[in-house]
């Protein structure tokens, strides 16, 4: 239902943009008659409702159609881009999630000390720096000046996974810098709230060692908001990295959606947005499952 609404919004939203596909393919200088002809061949001159239902019925048969501009199946373009986006997101997540949670917990435990201020203020300052600034600084330092890491994210064809990983480090680091402050801050807030709660106080009063309290009682509860935040970032990581993908010349989903919207390549645009929507839904679902694992109360509520 959500995805269907999304597809409707994208479809009719895209119609507001100026230009048309035939013009995008043939260029501003082509004869209008030839453009009309091409639009007719592509079927983009039909009524919107007809185009939409046609596409929808194709989708139910598992056929996402052909890209109007690239003249090849949408699925092949999507698989390439999605694979790239998932790889980058995975590398970024693997680095940022443990780091940010650790940072957040430490900041909470050392509340109002210098360590706390460095983590919260530092993280927050880095978060507000736009990604193209951090990206360029990282490229200049590690790519050009120290010359230890590649500046483009796309490994040469046929590279082994380790080489691919090396190519992904700089863009992933850019994301880490962007996300660290945000996730750490939420973790810190959650941890502090749990530390101040009645059950934590009871546990301390019971005489349990601090470490056990944190691990068994505090973390479980404090991570709930963190998980929600991470899940909401997934959509951005998969479909919203236009700037980073551009800077590191990495043809992922962000740029695929961006150019499809520019060129009014409707089948490609719809399918890519839907895929990102799906990734988002799956991430939310996984977050819900993680929630219930960490917090039995939710599980009980569901079965009642």
């Amino acid at each position, binding site marked *: 239902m959500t995805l269907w609404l999304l597809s409707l919004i994208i479809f009719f939203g895209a119609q507001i*943009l*100026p*230009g048309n596909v035939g*013009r*995008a*393919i*043939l*260029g*501003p*200088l*082509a*004869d*209008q008659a*030839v*453009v009309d*002809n*091409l639009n007719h061949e592509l079927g983009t001159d039909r009524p919107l409702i007809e185009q939409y239902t046609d596409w929808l019925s194709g989708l139910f048969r598992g056929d996402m159609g052909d890209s109007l*501009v*690239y*003249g*090849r199946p949408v699925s092949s*373009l999507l698989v*390439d*881009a999605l694979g790239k986006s998932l790889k980058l997101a995975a590398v970024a997540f693997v680095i940022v999630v443990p780091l940010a949670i650790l940072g957040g917990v430490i900041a909470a435990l050392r509340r109002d000390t210098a360590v706390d201020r460095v983590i919260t203020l530092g993280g927050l300052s880095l978060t507000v720096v736009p990604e193209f600034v951090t990206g*360029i600084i990282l*490229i200049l330092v590690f*790519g*050009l000046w120290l*010359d230890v890491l*590649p*500046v*483009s994210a*796309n490994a*040469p*064809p046929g590279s082994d996974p380790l080489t691919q990983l090396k190519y992904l480090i700089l863009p992933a680091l850019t994301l880490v810098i962007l996300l660290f402050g945000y996730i750490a801050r939420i973790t810190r807030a959650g941890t502090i709230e749990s530390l101040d709660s009645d059950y934590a106080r009871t546990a301390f009063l019971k005489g349990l060692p601090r470490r056990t309290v944190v691990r068994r009682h505090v973390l479980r509860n404090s991570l709930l908001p963190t998980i929600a935040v991470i899940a909401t970032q997934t959509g951005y990581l998969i479909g919203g990295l236009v700037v980073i993908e*551009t*800077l*590191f*010349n990495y*043809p992922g989903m962000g*740029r*695929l959606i961006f*150019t499809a919207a*520019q*060129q009014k390549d409707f089948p490609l645009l719809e399918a890519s947005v839907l895929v990102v929507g799906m990734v988002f839904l799956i991430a939310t679902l996984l977050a819900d499952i993680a929630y219930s694992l960490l917090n039995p109360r939710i599980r009980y509520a569901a079965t009642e």
Partner: protein
Amino acid sequence: MDETQRRVDAIRAQRNEIENHVIDEYTAGRISRREFIRRGTVLGMSIPLVSFIAAACGGGGGTSAGTSPGQTTGGTANAGGTIRAGTSPPATKLNPLLVQDQGGLSVLSQSGEYLTFSDSKLNLQPVLAETFEPNDDASVWTFKLRQGVKFQDGTPFVANDVVGTFDRLSNPKTGGNALSALGGYLKPGGTQAVDDTTVAFHLEAPNGNFPYLVSSDNYNAIILPADFDPDTWEQSFMGTGPWKMTKYTPKEGVSYTKNPDYWSPNQPLADALEMKFFADEQAAVLAIQGGQTDVQLQFSVSGGQALLNDPNVTVIKTRSAAHRQVHMRTDMEPFTDKRVRQAMALVLDRQAIVDGLFDGLSDIGNDHPFAPVFPSTDTSVAQRELDVEQAKQLVADAGMSGGFSAKLETWKGFEIPDYAVLIQNAAKEIGGTIELSITDASTYYGDGTYGNSRWLDSVMGITEYGHRGVPNVFLDAPLKSTGTWNSAHFKNPTYDGLVDDYVSAVDLQSQKSTAGQIEQLLLDETPIIFSYFYYFLTATKSNVVGVEPSAMGHLNLRETGFVS
């Protein structure tokens, strides 16, 4: 000496009237040696022959011989290795008929080849055609084709393939991009095979520059098999070229290996080629600096300043006819009075603009499309200089001393927004209030038809024009009364007549004298401001040699290799 003269006479006896006319002009000193060589090659004389006559007849004022195969980087290259070249991603599916962007054409011409290659000095280098010559009024051009060439699927290349290719390109029903060049001169059926290795182009109207229209300048004109369906090109990357596609990933790049059956022995020099697509200039510049590419086809001064100062990078500067046109609607206020248009052109400090926007890497324009790079340009027409006082006087004479205002529409690309601001500031000196409206490209171009396009309807606008080997398109579409891109809505029968004269003129002397009249007329009318023709900049790593770009956006890597 007698022997030399005898040989010259023997040669001249075999040449046709037009060719002898060029030789006469050269001996009379009316054209330079360099122009003679260029002109001679356009007419189909081979370079050794032209050079021989040039040396024997010794006229002309030019000094450089101009026989080198374009501007390339020097040094001796080793064979082998993989060249990694950066270009922009092709905007659409790769159909040779429809490709209309630099990314697309730079890919087309790796596995595909033209009859001739228009090099950086606008000399036509033989590729699939070995020689060509016109009839007496340049209405029929006969091309002799190279023998022993094979397409990449093994079928031999013959005259019928040229016929098939140009019948497709010149067919209005295909909507091909080449129509803008061939329209009015070549129709389907006009290309005829005389025998397997000879093709005759029968033109609708005489054209002294016709060989350019079937050269690499008309970048869609890669020669494909006679019955080839260009819509399937992406599957095979068909052609006779030095590189054979092994893998194509849209938006990412193309991998090639050397074509083992290539007609020129020992070429290409390298074993493999990786064309990598960069959607963003900054990423491309960083990639060559960071050692992930060896060549970057094009970069701009504003985006690639770092490359100009990098000791590990060699920059190839190719003069070009690429420019921006600032149109002023001659049928709308405040520009109906030509004095206001002249005043706008007079307040621009062109040297400062060129220094500011291009670090000086640009020729200065004189408000007509005859770029200094074109040999037919009449350079004796005085350059329009900055003159604020005269501009103020002109505005006062036009009755607008109280000030005037106009909206300048353009799009956000290249240096155009900066240029718009410079124009806006300059106009203030003569009481002009210019309001800027800068959108994205598709909003600016709209449908590309009158009434549906800011480009064609705005009272004032800035439009980018790419390089062309001859000024014909620039003279026609944006300026002729019937022109389809006439943003200035300029309608002047005298001008139209002069352009017709220019196009049908076969010998350089009459082209040049007509050019002079056109330049004077446009300077006076000033429907469009042409203030610069910027250079085409290509970057290579300093260990890479033999790279030959064209100002059009081709990248000839046949002789490219690494020095140890």
